[in-house]
């Protein structure tokens, strides 16, 4: 429920409870919110989604996507101040009850909005100050309630994921709603903002004595990828191609040394330059530089082509900064180059081309493939922490938002390690393999 309010002012409310319902009917394979709406009223069980939210909001307009700042109570994350989809600051902990209610207040000064919370309505604590751009003189202010689909990734298999999305809804109970500053009293309007997929017969906005009960579902949050999200990350445009390049680079890197062993050329090489470690280092630099240059060229061309194709197919591409896009391109190319150096090192250790190529592919491609298809989610995370495949994290372009409920699993492009940490894991494996190769090169006859 909301109303238009001009100029500066404040809105204050007391929240005495936040209750919720889970749809017990669940969803089918990769259920989306839309398909759940088809059985609206059967089987709801009482439970509050941890990121259910109810509170007060000041928003540029009632259109989805417009700027906002809000103070809210949540299912199990205490009081929060959130703004413009990705901003999130924690306030008081604990859930609201009649005995221990939560007071929320938003104050507008021009484009600046300050959020306060309180346990008693007299001593107030400032939670945060945010500046919203695009907030006109007349903004919408009011009470809101949202409850995201509860996401359970139950299993993954080679035929796809059977993540179950359970539709949820919540109801916040409010009283002591008051307006301050230049904002006058008046009538409130109830409205659904954005797509809704809850029970159609639900009273979304009811008066209870001097208070209100507001119910809702969905979320006020950034678009994310995954079963509950609608977005596609930019790295999807290059992912299969970059793995094909990793395999090709592995073959090149391995052949760069094993071909010398097969033809006996290695004896000539080591006679001409007897410092064997230097030979290995020179080979690593040459194969790394060549594959890096080829990788950057290939990916810089493939990314825009792939993105255009994804857009044509009707995918919504999640926006990223230019710096992130640069990191994805350079990182994917570096992954290809380091894979070639790893293959070189393994080839120097094993001296057999087929074995070296297999080791590199089984180290980088197979763990990733297993993580996004056959492995249970917990095991998939571990595999992508310790194997060389951890480097795929360098291609992750959007962060996981702790305050947004979604399936943050490798299958949907969210990896357990930070981009550069994951890449460092591959580099550590490569350095270890190079060290072993140098050691064996000195120890063994050529």
């Amino acid at each position, binding site marked *: 429920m909301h109303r238009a309010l001009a100029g500066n002012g404040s809105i204050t409310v007391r929240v005495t409870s936040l209750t919720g319902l889970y749809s017990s009917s669940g969803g089918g394979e990769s259920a989306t919110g839309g398909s759940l709406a088809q059985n609206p009223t059967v089987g709801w069980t009482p439970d509050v989604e941890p990121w259910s939210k109810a509170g007060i909001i000041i928003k540029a307009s009632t259109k989805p996507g417009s700027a906002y700042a809000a103070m809210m109570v949540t299912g199990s994350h205490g009081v929060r101040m959130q703004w413009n989809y990705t901003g999130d600051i924690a306030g008081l902990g604990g859930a609201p009850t009649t005995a221990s209610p939560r007071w929320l207040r938003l104050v507008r000064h021009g484009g600046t909005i300050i959020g306060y919370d309180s346990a008693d309505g007299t001593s107030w604590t400032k939670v945060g100050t945010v500046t919203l751009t695009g907030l006109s003189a007349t903004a919408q202010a009011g009470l809101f309630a949202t409850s995201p689909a509860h996401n359970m990734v139950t299993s993954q298999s080679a*035929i796809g994921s059977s993540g179950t999305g359970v539709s949820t809804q919540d109801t916040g109970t409010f009283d002591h709603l008051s307006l301050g500053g230049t904002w006058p009293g008046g009538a409130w309007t109830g409205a659904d903002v954005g797509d809704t997929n809850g029970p159609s017969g639900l009273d979304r906005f009811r008066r209870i004595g001097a208070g209100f009960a507001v119910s809702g579902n969905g979320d006020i949050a950034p678009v994310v990828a995954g079963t509950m999200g609608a977005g596609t990350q930019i790295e999807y445009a290059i992912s*299969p191609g970059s793995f094909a390049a990793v395999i090709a680079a592995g073959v090149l890197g391995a052949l760069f040394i*094993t071909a010398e062993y097969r033809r006996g050329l290695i004896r000539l090489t080591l006679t001409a330059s007897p410092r064997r470690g230097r030979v290995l280092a020179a080979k690593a630099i040459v194969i790394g530089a060549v594959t890096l240059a080829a990788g950057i060229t290939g990916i810089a061309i493939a990314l825009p082509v792939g993105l255009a194709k994804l857009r044509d197919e009707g995918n919504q591409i999640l926006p990223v900064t230019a710096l992130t896009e640069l990191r994805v391109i350079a990182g994917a190319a570096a992954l290809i180059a380091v894979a070639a150096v790893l293959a070189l090192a393994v080839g120097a250790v094993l001296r057999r081309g087929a074995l070296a190529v297999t080791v590199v592919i089984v180290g980088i491609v197979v763990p990733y493939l297993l993580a996004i*298809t056959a492995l*249970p989610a917990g095991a998939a995370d571990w595999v992508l922490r310790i194997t060389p495949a951890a480097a795929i994290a360098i291609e992750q372009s959007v962060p996981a938002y702790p305050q947004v409920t979604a399936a943050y699993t490798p299958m949907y492009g969210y990896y357990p390690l930070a981009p550069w940490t994951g890449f460092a894991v591959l580099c550590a494996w490569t350095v270890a393999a190079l060290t072993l190769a140098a050691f064996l090169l000195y120890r063994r006859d050529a």
Partner: protein
Amino acid sequence: MSRTLHAEWTKLRTAGGTGWLRLAVVVLTAAVGAATAASVTCHVAGGCGQDPAELSLTGVYLGQAVVAIIAVLAISGEYGAEMIRLTFAAMPRRFSVLAAKAAVVTGLVLVAGTVASAGSVLAGQLILPGHGLAGPPLSLGNGADLRAALGSVLYLALIGLLALGVATTVRNSAAAIGIVLGLLFLFPLLTATVSAGAWRRHLEQIAPMTAGLDVQATANIRALPLTPWQGLGVLAAWATGTLLLAGLTLQLRDA
């Protein structure tokens, strides 16, 4: 033909590393299967839709890479050492040589694959109970589970034939293994990024690994783009195709 077979069997048996590679097929397949089974959890009453047979046989993903090495080395080892000229001088019927190689590789993989598959199922039977999976326990007395276990053995044998065909055509061992593993692993990675349902289904139907591994499915079979045996048939078609190409290039090219 029996002398050709005997010659090929002697070469495969005595080639350096074959024994280790056979052991690796068994150990890797069973170990990865056991680790996957151990990592499964389900806390939802009524199960989470997991497939016990498929989970226990996850190790086939890795085992097939070792099978591919065995098959690739069976032919490209000869090209690398240029022994292939001696082979064709002694046995001029090149198609027979290829058939004999295919037969001995298949025999070897069937034996190693049977041990690997049986080991994986045994590990699954020991580990999976108590992990909250619904449905009857994994048992080879159950028709679907038996089909998954036997199908995995046949799957590995077909991967061996596919790899032999590619390696005979390409000759270089590193390039051959790159092409074989690329064929197997890149299709599912491509499928994962295709959102259009019809395209995705077609890719899953023609991909040698994705279609071939349908033979392991015992739960949710109706959701598969192919029936389990049809899926294995797709892989058989790939193996036949690459072997025919290999036979053709053997006849047309100088050794």
